[in-house]
């Protein structure tokens, strides 16, 4: 693991290396070099298994974080590659030419976060939300509760409790 990270640091401008588990490391790289790092890992370092691609909405920093997790089945090592892209122009290079299934993840991210991957096959097709015409629902500025109340005819008389408070009152009624 250490040697691998040294090799990567020598070749690429990676930062924020965090070892979360013995065989799992997170690292950050800029948007331009992400795909070449993934290609390098797949073709030279033998990370043949693409685990997942997901996104996080950092609305305060006006950024989307994309996380690619790759797995090397021979030595059982995971590497997670984080990259930050701007929220104003959410667009990322597609990686569908490396693994076919990446196209599906990118299609999902396009629908849920509105992150575009030009050239990815079928990226504009609807994935789960057929005919969604609001802002993408996984963005944090999308108000789920308000949308639900306007759309889905909520049944009146529903009570909501804060789970921590509720259990505290129930288990220790005397404080």
């Amino acid at each position, binding site marked *: 693991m250490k040697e691998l990270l040294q090799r990567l640091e020598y070749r690429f401008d990676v930062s924020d290396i965090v070892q979360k588990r013995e065989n799992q490391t997170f690292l950050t790289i800029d948007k331009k070099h992400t795909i070449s790092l993934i290609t390098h890992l797949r073709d030279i370092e033998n990370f043949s298994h693409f685990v997942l691609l997901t996104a996080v909405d950092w609305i305060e920093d006006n950024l989307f974080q994309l996380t690619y997790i790759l797995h090397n089945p021979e030595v059982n090592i995971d590497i997670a590659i984080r990259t930050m892209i701007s929220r104003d122009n959410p667009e990322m290079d597609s990686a569908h030419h490396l693994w076919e299934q990446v196209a599906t993840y990118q299609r999902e991210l396009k629908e849920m976060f509105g992150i575009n991957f030009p050239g990815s096959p079928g990226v504009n097709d*609807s994935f*789960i*939300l*057929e*005919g*969604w*015409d609001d802002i993408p*629902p996984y963005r944090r500025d*999308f108000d*789920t*509760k308000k*949308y*639900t109340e306007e*759309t*889905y*005819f*909520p*049944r009146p008389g*529903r009570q909501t409790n804060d789970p921590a408070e509720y259990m505290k009152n129930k288990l220790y009624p005397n404080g």
Partner: protein
Amino acid sequence: MSEINNKNTSGIEKDKFFAPENEKRTVTAPDGQIIEIDPLNDYFCGDAPRVHKPHKNKLFESFLNWARAESIWVLGFGTGCGSIELYPLLTPRFDAYRFGIQMAPTPRQSSLMIISGYLSVKTLKRVVRSYEQMQNPKFVMGLGSCTINGGMYWDSYNTINRLDYYLPVDTYIAGCMPRPEALLAGFNHLKKAIKEGKGEGANKYAENFEWYKANQKKIIKDWNMPDYNW
């Protein structure tokens, strides 16, 4: 005539959710004739459902209702997590066959639709299609809290809150998830209701067709199917 056609096609093009395979097109038939096909009108019957009144003879009708109650064919359509609670019913431990409950593989032949658990909008579209393909004395059972008030998915952007706004529900079974025993109790409740002549969900659906359709169309935004799927 051509003006009207143009108007129609331009109206269709404006609808961004209209599937391209449903557009009007001209086709060359095997014998060389050129014919125009409008898939939505030619392949489907566009009529609304009709109310089928119960038989006038009360005694005869109650006999038929008894037969309907004792022979419930469940459509094997699991919408959510609750579908996994249905299969124990067919095992030796619970054995729902004793009560005349069988699984039917196609909507054409089944009489009860169980909405098992949360219902997402994408699934609702398929559920509506399947429900409308079932034949007239047909019943709907809502399984789990999700169909009653949304359950733990009450504030989800993609799951419905109240099933009875979209389909006429005969029985609800509360719980998250209900045990198979609760399901059996629900079946008995449904049977009682049918025997009393209250299982008229299909007629209710036909009477309030426009209200149900409006509710369905409010959330199914890419409505690219006929209004009633015969």
